[in-house]
């Protein structure tokens, strides 16, 4: 039976199980929007900016594990998706972006609202397509969802010329996807996994480094079993938070640039690092030459290119984390080690580091400390909310002071570090999980990067909470300038910060403000009670507060700066990159 391209597209989306699309209309996608107008199964959430749509789809995907879908028009609609696509690409988030394109006979003519979006997004998508024939549409959509969601997930873009969605073709749903150049490895090499088991059994001072791969693969249970069975402490990357319970006795919290002292010390003194679903990013390793100097390294990841990209690896295992960990546990159980006895002294040593330099800040009775706000949010939500963050100090304080016990509870732009991610991502998360509490922990700089999405949240009656840690500065930039650029605050003060309470109210949301520490809890309690619309909670915080501990860029991860040392004569700090 012949169908129009737009009908085929929508039918394919339904067969892929799509219920929500985040999008924005425009000239060349009207064929598709016209079909969606009558559709009962698919709901389109109209954002106020295409970037917001992509971050929303990304948040939807991270919170639910399903593929997020975006629909935008050609030209500026498509180019506005680039930041969101790059964000999803860096953090391995499965999204499919459908972009309109000018009719095929106009491509290359610099037509109105034409952009070579396939060319532009080539380096930041897992794969992308330009569909030139309506007859190819069903196959391409099927492949796109398959590629986005399998292996190491990532964004896929499909460019749809207007005549392709307007044309007709016979509709056949391809039963199978077969792409000869794409065969992800799921089962790890058994021999390598056995080597890994032997390494773990031999190690006296092992540390597990768990990353986003644990969450994507759904391997939290297996990771916990591995850690508990072998009495191995677990340090997490930013993307790995929640992959292992943050309150677990074996959790070391986050490692890296703003990681805990004891996590970094453990890594630096370890004789074995077990990297699981990580890519040894520079924010985690610090100066690579000094990273874990005495450790052998096991690296488990589904993406072969992650292995030996940044660090030397002794035992590489390419495969899906969950499946590899299952095999690994099987081998370990055959070994029957005296785990508890062997590890006791190592865990004790780590405990000493923890006592030596605990995570903390100086509470103040007069001025709100941003860490205090995050702690209160943790307390009041009992650690069970979905938290999104923006990028900068707000993100690091959240990672430090909110203890994530479950996966898919922290949605943050780890790889690309995209300001303006958190609020639209919260919209996506709330659509995916309508019964969950969704909170965006933001800064006054970041929130202004996608503040227009307030309208989207209000229209859809989404009770998203936005806690703005308002210090009138681009705080992390200011922190670096204070520490490494002789306190020359070049363009990091925001001068005019809008009245966020009035902004919220102008959009029809709730606006609240706390200016003193004793107001924090009442404001949070009031905000968290709102059920039918978004809430902005404006916390006027100490602008001088910095994120500690901190490893200066280019330093080894045990060369950390601490707040206590601020009072002492300044150490000479090198500014590196």
């Amino acid at each position: 039976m012949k169908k129009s391209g737009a009908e085929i597209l929508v039918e394919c989306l339904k067969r892929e199980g799509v219920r929500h699309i985040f999008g924005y209309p425009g000239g060349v996608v009207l064929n598709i929007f016209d079909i969606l107008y009558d559709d009962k199964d698919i709901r389109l959430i109209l954002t106020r900016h295409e970037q917001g749509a992509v971050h929303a789809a990304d948040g939807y995907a991270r919170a639910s594990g399903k593929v997020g879908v975006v629909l935008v028009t050609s030209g500026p609609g498509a180019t506005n998706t680039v930041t969101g696509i790059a964000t999803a690409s860096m953090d391995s988030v499965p999204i499919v972006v459908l972009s309109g394109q000018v009719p095929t006979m106009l491509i290359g003519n610099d037509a109105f609202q034409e952009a070579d979006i396939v060319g532009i997004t080539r380096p930041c998508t897992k794969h992308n397509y330009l569909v030139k024939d309506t007859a190819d549409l069903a196959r391409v959509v099927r492949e796109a969802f398959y590629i986005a969601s399998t292996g190491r997930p990532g964004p896929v873009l499909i460019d749809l010329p207007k005549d392709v969605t307007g044309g007709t073709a016979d509709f056949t749903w391809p039963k199978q996807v077969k792409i000869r150049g794409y065969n992800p490895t799921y089962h790890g090499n058994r021999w390598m996994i056995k080597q890994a088991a032997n390494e773990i059994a031999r190690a006296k001072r092992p540390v597990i480094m768990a990353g986003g791969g644990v969450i994507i693969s759904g391997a939290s249970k297996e990771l916990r079993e591995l850690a508990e069975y072998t009495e191995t402490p677990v340090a997490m990357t930013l993307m790995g938070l929640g992959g292992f319970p943050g309150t677990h006795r074996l959790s070391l919290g986050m490692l890296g640039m703003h990681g805990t002292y004891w996590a970094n010390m453990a890594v630096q003194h370890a004789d074995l690092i077990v990297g699981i679903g990580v890519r040894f990013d520079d924010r985690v390793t610090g100066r690579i030459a000094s990273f874990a100097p005495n450790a052998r390294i096991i690296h488990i990841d589904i993406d072969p290119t992650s292995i030996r990209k940044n660090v030397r690896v002794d035992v590489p295992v390419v495969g899906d984390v969950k499946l590899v960990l299952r095999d690994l546990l099987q081998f370990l159980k055959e070994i029957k080690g005296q785990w508890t006895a062997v590890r006791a002294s190592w865990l004790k040593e780590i405990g000493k580091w923890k006592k030596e330099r605990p995570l903390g800040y100086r509470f103040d009775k007069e001025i709100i400390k941003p860490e205090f706000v995050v702690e209160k949010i943790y307390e009041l939500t009992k650690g069970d909310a979905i938290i999104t963050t923006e990028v900068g100090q707000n993100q690091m304080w959240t990672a430090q002071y909110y203890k994530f016990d479950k996966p898919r509870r922290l949605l943050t732009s780890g790889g690309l570090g995209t300001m303006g991610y958190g609020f639209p991502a919260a919209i996506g998360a709330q659509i995916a999980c309508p019964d969950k509490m969704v909170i965006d922990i933001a800064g006054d700089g970041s929130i202004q990067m996608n503040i227009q999405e307030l309208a989207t949240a209000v229209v859809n009656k989404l009770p998203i909470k936005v806690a703005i840690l308002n210090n009138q500065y681009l705080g992390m930039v200011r922190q670096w300038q204070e520490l490494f650029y002789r306190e020359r605050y070049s363009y990091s003060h925001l001068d005019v910060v809008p009245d966020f309470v009035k902004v919220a109210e102008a959009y029809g949301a709730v606006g609240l403000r706390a200016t003193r520490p004793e107001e924090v809890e009442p404001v949070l309690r009031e905000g968290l009670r709102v059920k039918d619309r978004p809430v902005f909670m404006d916390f006027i915080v100490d602008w001088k507060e910095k994120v500690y501990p901190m490893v200066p860029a280019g330093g080894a991860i045990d060369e950390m700066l601490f707040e206590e040392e601020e009072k002492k004569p300044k150490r000479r700090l090198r500014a590196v990159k």
Partner: protein
Amino acid sequence: MRHTISVLVENRFGVLARVAGLFSGRGFNIESLSVGETLDPQISLMTIVTSGDDQIIEQITKQLNKLIDVIKVVDFMEIEHVEREMILLKVAPKKEDRAEVLRLTEIFRGRVVDSGPTTYTVEITGDEKKINAFVELMKAYGIKEFVRTGKVAIAREGLKRKEGG
């Protein structure tokens, strides 16, 4: 270390851009690149000459494999193989040197494919060393311009079987 890598790809538009973009985006270098259709018209073969230490070459082959349109990557460093390149070289010798240029061409098993009142265009096929040697020799006679195809490579038959076993 220089490596010759052959990359079997889907014969689709945009594939060359994907491969070239991967090299430029990640700071790998391409010394030469040649592309052509294979026996199966849906598949093209690229021969890329690149250089880097072991870690970089490992990344290059892994990153190439990661591209959806790439079907197979072979690094000829590990494989006995034959390499060839062709050059078209236009030389403008003095009148008294014209015979010598022809003799040299013959020695290199080349052919004159075009000849003008003051120039010869010579075609030479061979491995890189041979081509470089010929270019060096011709410099003395006044090279006007030349064009090289870039290297192509193919595995030797006996060792292909050994690899498969």
